[in-house]
């Protein structure tokens, strides 16, 4: 078959994701700010859809944030990752799925570097043996958790309780998708759709009935920048980048934002709060912000899970306007209850951004 034009380019950016047999590693940031997203990734992909995804308590960080903040040498980061591979090998798995884009980029960079410089891989194997007496096989496939949700998106759509449709107007909800830089900017052929036509999130949105919003700064970084957020003195960089994105998307009136990377939803959510406090400006309607969701939260809403079980109360931007458009029923009084339904009082309200 002779492929033509876009069809040919597109075929180069497809990923043949294995259906099953995954060794799962968690994210430093996602488990801190969106712990329920990790819970529901497993609840949906493993428990509901029945796929084989294994987790061991013995895995750790991949060291990616420390590495990209320039605080550990490359060999340290590589050997930490080699230990994760050893745990995968010992558990009898060949495919690794990570809950973090920084990790996904880190694993990919390491495997590509070893492919080009086999002597480095040999040294890392030696390091790991000296430090832990462990050995490893390299994974046959490394996926980001969103790759699996993308792969299973139609199975999720078949079980949907809600479509991404505004129940008041009957029109598709307008969703901004944010891919996260380390998913496909470094190694475009490793991301679904590459850096030019990434569709890992847009594929989910369209499959679940929504409409993807295109806007000029769609591919701009959220502004994490590692040291540019982690050091208090540098956070102007971080908020400025988010501000640029929101100014660019504002005229398109999105109903929500869905994100790939664990850090991006935190920054796109919290910097809306900071911008509102600093300038008085909000980007949603009637003083609200634009709700920012992880892809697990979006999948969970589509499947009809309770929004407070999904952790939407941990967002600073109120999710209620989106829930109302979707027709999701929720108990406002249950939003801030604790693990045993005890009353934990409520967070203070921001001075500008409208919240409940």
């Amino acid at each position: 078959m002779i492929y033509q034009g876009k069809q040919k380019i597109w075929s180069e950016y497809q990923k043949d994701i294995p259906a099953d047999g995954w060794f799962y590693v968690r994210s430093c940031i996602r488990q801190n700010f969106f712990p329920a997203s990790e819970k529901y990734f497993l609840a949906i992909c493993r428990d509901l859809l029945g796929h084989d995804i294994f987790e061991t308590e013995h895995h750790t960080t991949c060291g990616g944030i420390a590495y990209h903040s320039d605080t550990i040498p490359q060999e340290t980061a590589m050997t930490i990752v080699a230990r994760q591979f050893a745990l995968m090998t010992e558990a009898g798995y060949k495919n690794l799925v990570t809950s973090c884009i920084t990790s996904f980029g880190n694993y990919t960079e390491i495997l590509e570097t070893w492919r080009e410089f086999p002597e480095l891989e040999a040294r890392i194997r030696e390091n790991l043996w000296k430090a832990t007496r462990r050995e490893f096989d390299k994974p046959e496939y490394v996926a980001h958790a969103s790759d699996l949700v993308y792969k299973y998106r139609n199975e999720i759509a078949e079980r949907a309780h809600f479509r991404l449709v505004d129940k008041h107007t009957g029109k598709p909800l307008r969703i901004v998708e944010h891919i996260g830089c380390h998913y496909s900017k470094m190694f475009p052929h490793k991301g679904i759709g590459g850096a030019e036509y990434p569709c890992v999130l847009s594929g989910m949105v369209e499959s679940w009935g929504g409409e993807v919003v295109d806007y000029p700064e769609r591919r701009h970084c959220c502004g994490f920048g590692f040291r540019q957020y982690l050091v208090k003195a540098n956070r102007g960089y971080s908020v400025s980048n988010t501000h640029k994105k929101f100014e660019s998307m504002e005229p398109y009136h999105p109903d929500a934002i869905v994100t790939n990377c664990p850090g991006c939803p935190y920054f796109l959510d919290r910097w809306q709060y900071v911008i509102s406090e600093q300038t008085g400006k909000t980007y949603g309607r009637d003083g609200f912000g634009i709700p920012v969701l992880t892809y697990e939260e979006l999948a969970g809403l589509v499947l009809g899970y309770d929004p407070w079980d999904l952790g939407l109360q941990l967002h600073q931007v109120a999710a209620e306007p989106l829930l109302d458009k979707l027709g999701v029923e929720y108990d406002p009084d249950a939003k801030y209850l604790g693990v045993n339904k005890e009353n934990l009082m409520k967070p203070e309200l921001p001075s500008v951004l409208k919240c409940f």
Partner: protein
Amino acid sequence: MNYFEELNKDYRFKEGFHTCINCGTCTAVCPAAEFYRYDPRKIVSIVQTKDNDAIEELLKSDTIWYCGECMSCVTRCPRKNGPGLVIMALRDLSIRLGFFTESEKGRQIYPLTKVLNSNVLNYGYCVHPATFTYKDHPESGPVFEWALEHKESVYGRLGANYCGKGPGALRRIPREDLDELKAIYDVTGGTERLEIVEKYSRAKAEEMGMTMQEYAEYTFTHCSTGHFNDE
């Protein structure tokens, strides 16, 4: 020392530095260049000259610390360079030689190293609620101030296994696994890196007349004028 030869030993440099044609595409797409007085094209151009004095000046400057390592430049370079990777190699060399204490942004390596690596070695992750405070992160908003105040209940409500045994989000990492991380740091130069950062930062703090606690607080919070394009 020939700095170019040192850089060329770094695998990120080998991957990210080929012949640069000075087109400036990296600068055009760079999120850092938009806000900081930063131009990745110039940095790669200086490195390409192999001028030892000019490279030393870079290693001691604020300039190399402005990058956010988003790697947007990698996608767009028509010559398959990675200016972000060149930056990582420059930063690595700057730290090894103790040059990082010569610039305000370089000195930030001290609090970064301290916080991130103590999290990795004590909790098994780079970020952990036990050390993430509202005081240092007011942008996390009143909702996170509330969440941190009720950590165990809130994380429990959201399905995390907070500081518990067995798998799950925010679980306690078993001691033997943390010991393995420490052994990896010892074998791979991670521990030595912490000692180097401590040694040069201590000397700088002394020169600036500060205790280490004051130095950590100052480098974490202080931002002079002159870094931004619109100043």
